[in-house]
């Protein structure tokens, strides 16, 4: 009925109303008043024809609800604040999970993208795949992920991120640039005299302020590149959590990463291969077609298989493809589990807020009993009353939802900075409001409205008519069902709080355990300074000389006990591995001939406080003229030499241009661990002998006294020696360790927040309940005291009730916590999540909180004047 819609416009309604009255007047003149009968009824019925009764009913409910809520602003404020926080937090976590785990890449047909999980990651491997694509893949490209390099836009070098991509990368993803053009296969030629670059949208805004950049030159590590395009704002490559500043063709790798060629050599693994399937082709088909290429690459890299077992495992291996429609991400692997747990915690927090609001609504419904019974008496249906009360809850929840949407963005951004930190950089995720998020907020708001409003509304509407209208005393304590309901709600609050408090204790203790873990070195009074000698314009062997000079100067600073240096540092994300061989290493499977390694300075291990198990540390006698030496860690010795002596054996390491250098092992040291996982095998070379440096130097400084006091002098010394040096960070070893524990710290911090919130809410809940109860039972208490009850009997009366509530709440909460414990098993360190001590601790906390909260009303009851109480009767 299209015409009826017009009557929603108030202007037209009023016009129709006026005309109807006019018509009645005119007809009355013609027909006479009595002929027409009951015009009021006629008007009512006519209005029903063009009216929208249900809609108008709802609108009336809404207006009334707003009036009611405005009369009690404290209640409305309390409810909206707690719900808004809960909804906002839930929405924030949801948008984080959406951005990290579920959202598809903003590229063409993301569902056809795949990555090669177990393939070679070198340029050599890529070119083999690209050359033998076969029919199943429409295109195969490769990218390197964000790498730190120095960018110079003309204002001097600044730290930035570049990503190396093959020429067909943008084409494969179907990305058109906002300005200019993307990188094409023609640009990706080795020795291209005019290398090109594409800027990301955010970098374009940040570094150039959005000005015209096409044709301008940007220098990456002093190599000039011509800017040919700017990527669209939502594009960030295929790695979720990173946004490169500049995309460069992979053929320029050697100018951007000076040193051994990244493009040559079969073992320089820096690329991730991403491909697009032909329409209609499955991953299995593509895998079957490309596995022979993968095997071929393996043969060319590692030579023919040495044993029958190796031959079989090689030829039975399969190239594994994985869907890349959601991008690739290390963050995802590391944080998907914690994020899920946080999601549930935040959900429980919201549930707690809803239960709180529900108990507040119960109390309010009791207060409004008179008003409701009057409405029932003059004919409102119970359904209508329930609907009106529910409307109040809906309005509260809607307001909270709106505020929650506003809170989402800052909360999510704060969470990203707090949690999703990889290698000292917070992740960069797109946190804009999507329709999915709005839908989620709407759903959560509706759920909140229902949970907090339905039961009070139904109960209030069921209220008996007679007792409400009487002015006399109400039955002591209210109706039995009312009392049970209130206690049940309080017990539910205790139970939910217990779960959150147990989580707090669990994660806090787990973090404590983690901080004690033995990293293989002495963390006391140890500083790490990150210095890049290449900043000072040094190159090649001069870098090493500078390292040594800086070490000597730092050692001279008052308060410093010992100084050494290395490339990786400690507790850093840095990790390099390479191919090696060793005397007596009988494992012919070439795949096990990879180990992590580091270039360190003299006395590195004694400075770090790492125990030397056999042989010796590096010292200044290990110079370029002396025999080449190496030191290995215990895990290396175990895996390679299986218990026999490592000292004295030879280690063969593949260096630049595939040459093999031989080093004699002169020491075995304790495992230095970056994190709590199993130790990795590592070998160490003396940088003075290798004369290679690829990245910045990390100086280890052991101080005599408080490390932070020495930091300013260290900075001054470094600046004095080489003024052009840029000293990034000077951290203590403890701080660095803490950074690797980001996930665990996150869990502990959030759990603390929730635990505190839970305790407050539980306490308030119990206090409110008992306070209310005592007020209602004033007469009863007065009578008891009049017939001889002592003060402590009265106190016991109150506390007995609290004990019952706390007991049942703790029982329910403990059961729930134990059930849910298994979901957080992977996040706790060296303990079972269902640890009975933790549960007991949480229970004790809640008993104290519940008891303390009930104490005040209990004392008030005990100090009541019996005579005054009875006089009120």
């Amino acid at each position, binding site marked *: *009925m299209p*015409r009826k819609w017009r009557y929603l416009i108030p202007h037209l309604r009023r016009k129709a109303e006026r005309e109807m009255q006019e018509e009645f007047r*005119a007809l009355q*003149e*013609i027909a006479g008043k009595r002929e027409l009968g009951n*015009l009021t009824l006629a008007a009512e019925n*006519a209005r029903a024809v063009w009216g929208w009764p249900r809609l108008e009913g709802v609108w009336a409910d809404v207006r009334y609800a707003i009036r009611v809520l405005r009369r009690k602003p404290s209640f409305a404020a309390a409810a909206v604040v707690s719900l808004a926080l809960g909804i906002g937090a839930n929405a924030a976590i949801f948008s984080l999970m959406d951005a990290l785990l579920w959202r598809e890449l903003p590229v063409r047909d993301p569902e056809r993208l795949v990555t090669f999980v177990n393939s070679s990651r070198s340029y050599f491997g890529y070119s083999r795949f690209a050359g033998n694509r076969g029919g199943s893949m429409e295109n195969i490209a490769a990218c390197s992920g964000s790498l730190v390099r120095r960018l110079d836009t003309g204002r001097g070098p600044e730290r930035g991120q570049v990503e190396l991509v093959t020429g067909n990368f943008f084409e494969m993803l179907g990305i058109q640039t906002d300005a200019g053009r993307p990188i094409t296969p023609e640009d990706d030629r080795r020795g291209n005299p005019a290398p090109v670059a594409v800027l990301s949208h955010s970098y374009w805004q940040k570094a150039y302020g959005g000005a015209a950049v096409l044709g301008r030159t940007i220098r990456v590590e002093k190599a000039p590149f011509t800017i040919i395009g700017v990527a669209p704002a939502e594009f960030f490559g295929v790695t979720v959590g990173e946004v490169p500043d500049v995309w460069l063709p992979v053929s320029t790798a050697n100018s951007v990463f000076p040193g051994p060629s990244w493009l040559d050599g079969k073992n320089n693994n820096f690329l991730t291969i991403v491909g697009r399937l032909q329409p209609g082709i499955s991953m299995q088909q593509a895998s079957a077609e490309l596995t022979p290429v993968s095997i071929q690459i393996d043969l060319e890299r590692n030579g023919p298989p040495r044993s029958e077992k190796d031959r079989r495992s090689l030829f039975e291996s399969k190239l594994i493809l994985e869907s890349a429609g959601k991008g690739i991400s290390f963050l995802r692997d590391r944080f998907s589990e914690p994020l899920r747990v946080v999601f549930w915690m935040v959900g429980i927090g919201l549930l707690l807020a809803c239960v709180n609001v529900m108990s507040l609504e119960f109390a309010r419904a009791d207060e409004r009993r008179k008003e409701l019974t009057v409405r029932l008496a003059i004919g409102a249906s119970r359904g209508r009353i329930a609907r009106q009360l529910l409307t109040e809850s809906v309005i509260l929840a809607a307001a909270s939802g709106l505020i929650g949407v506003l809170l989402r963005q800052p909360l999510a951004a704060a969470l990203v900075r707090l949690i999703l930190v990889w290698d000292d950089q917070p992740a960069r995720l797109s946190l804009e409001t999507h329709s999915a998020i709005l839908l989620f907020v709407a759903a959560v708001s509706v759920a909140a409205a229902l949970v907090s409003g339905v039961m009070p509304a139904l109960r209030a509407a069921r209220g008996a008519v007679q007792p409400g209208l009487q002015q006399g005393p109400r039955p002591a304590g209210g109706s039995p069902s009312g009392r049970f309901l209130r206690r049940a709600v309080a017990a539910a609050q205790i139970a939910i709080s217990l779960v959150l408090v147990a989580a707090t204790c669990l994660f806090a203790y787990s973090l404590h355990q983690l901080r004690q873990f033995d990293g293989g070195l002495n963390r006391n009074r140890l500083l790490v300074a990150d210095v890049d000698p290449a900043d000072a314009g040094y190159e090649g062997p001069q870098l090493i000389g500078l390292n040594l000079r800086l070490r000597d100067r730092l050692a001279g600073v008052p308060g410093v006990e010992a100084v050494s240096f290395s490339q990786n540092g400690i507790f850093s994300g840095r990790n390099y591995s390479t191919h090696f061989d060793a005397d007596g290493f009988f494992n012919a499977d070439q795949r096990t001939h990879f180990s992590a390694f580091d270039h360190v300075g003299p006395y590195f291990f004694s400075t770090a406080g790492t125990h030397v198990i056999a042989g010796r540390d590096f010292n200044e006698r290990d110079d370029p003229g002396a025999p080449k030496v190496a030191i290995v860690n215990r895990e290396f010795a175990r895996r390679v030499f299986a218990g026999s002596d490592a000292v004295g054996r030879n280690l063969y390491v593949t260096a630049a241009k595939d040459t093999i250098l031989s080093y004699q092992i002169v020491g075995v040291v304790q495992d230095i661990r970056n994190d709590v996982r199993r130790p990795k095998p590592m070998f160490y070379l003396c940088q003075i002998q290798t004369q290679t440096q690829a990245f910045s130097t990390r100086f280890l400084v052991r101080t005599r006294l408080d490390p932070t006091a020495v930091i300013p002098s260290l900075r001054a010394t470094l600046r004095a020696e080489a003024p052009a040096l840029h000293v990034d960070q000077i951290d203590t070893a403890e701080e660095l360790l803490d950074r690797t524990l980001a996930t665990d710290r996150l869990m502990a911090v959030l759990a603390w927040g929730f635990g505190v919130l839970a305790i407050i809410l539980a306490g308030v809940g119990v206090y409110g309940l008992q306070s209310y109860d005592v007020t209602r039972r004033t007469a009863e208490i007065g009578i008891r005291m009049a017939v001889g009850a002592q003060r402590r009997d009265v106190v016991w009366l109150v506390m007995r009730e609290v004990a019952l509530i706390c007991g049942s709440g703790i029982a329910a909460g403990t059961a729930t916590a134990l059930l849910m414990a298994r979901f957080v098993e992977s996040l706790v360190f060296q303990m079972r999540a269902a640890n009975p001590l933790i549960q007991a601790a949480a229970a004790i906390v809640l008993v104290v909180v519940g008891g303390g909260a009930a104490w005040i009303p209990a004392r008030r009851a005990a100090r009541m004047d019996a005579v005054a109480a009875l006089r009120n009767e």
Partner: protein
Amino acid sequence: MDLLKGTLDMLVLRTLVFGPLHGYAIAKAIRQTSDDALEIEFGSLYPALKRLELKGWVAAKWEKSENNRQVRIYRLTPAGKKQLTQEHAKWADFAGAIARVMGPAPEI
């Protein structure tokens, strides 16, 4: 006599076939044509008129009456004519069916 709601609509449409009328005149016409058997309360007629107007089967306009008063006149629309034909046919079928079942008045 009690009328079904749909029947009243049909009667009004039929009454307007002879020409536009105002609300009271329609009620009077139905009473007169049925020989006072159908006394339509204005309170029931008026909402029915509004319903028909909403459905587009009648159209209303303000016009000057005999004694120079502005009065609202209702007219049958073409759509209303079509609806009337359909209703009439349905009613005839209905009446015929009842008549067949009831047959002539039984002899007592």
